[in-house]
C-alpha cells in the first residue's frame, strides 16, 4: 500500500472511531429482532464456538 493510501485508510479509521463518552441508545426491540438474524447468520461458526476446547490446556 502506498503511503497516501495508508494515510487515507488511517483517516477513515479515525473518523469511524467513536469516543466512549458519545451517547448511543440501544433499542432492545430492534436488538431482539437482530439477534434472530445473528443466530441464523452465524450458525456454523457458533456451533464451533459453543464447544469447549482444551485451549491452552
Amino acid at each position: 500500500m502506498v503511503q497516501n493510501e495508508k494515510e487515507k485508510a488511517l483517516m477513515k479509521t479515525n473518523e469511524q472511531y467513536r469516543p466512549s463518552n458519545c451517547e448511543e441508545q440501544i433499542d432492545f426491540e430492534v436488538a431482539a429482532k437482530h439477534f434472530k438474524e445473528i443466530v441464523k447468520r452465524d450458525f456454523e461458526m457458533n456451533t464451533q464456538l459453543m464447544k469447549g476446547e482444551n485451549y491452552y490446556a
Partner: protein
Amino acid sequence: MPDMAEQKENIVRFLQQATGEFQNNRNVLNLSPSPLVYQEITQRYLCDISKFTDFPTNAYKKAAYMCFWIRKLKPFHPLSKEQQQANELFAIDCAFAMIEPVHGLRSQTVPIEFLKELIHNLRYRASSPYLIALIFTAMWDYQGIQET
C-alpha cells in the same frame, strides 16, 4: 427515553426472546433458564448503566456490561461438552445484537480463532466490562470495514 420500569421490561423481553431464538436454532439446550436470572441480569445491567447518567456512554460499553453479566450469572446449564460454552456464546451474541443496529454489521474479517479466544477468556479468565468494551470497540472501529 423509556422510564426505568419500561426499560427493565424491554430488556427482560429482549433476553427472553433471544433465549428462545438461541434454543430454537441450536436445538440442544434442554434446560430453560429461570425467569429470575433475566431479572437479575437486567437489574445488574441497569445498576451499572445508571452510573453513566452524567457521563454518556456508547453502545460498545452498554453491550459489554450486558455481556459481562450474562457470562457471570450464566442462564444456561450445559448438559454436554458440545454445549459447554453456551453461556459465553449467548453473552457475545446478545452483545453483537445490541451493537450491530448502531454500528453496522461485524466485519467478517474478524477470525474465528479470535472469537474462540474471546469466549475462552470470558469463561476461564478474569474479565471486566471495561476490557470487554475495549475489545468490542477494536472489533468494529479499528477494522475500518463497515458492511452495512
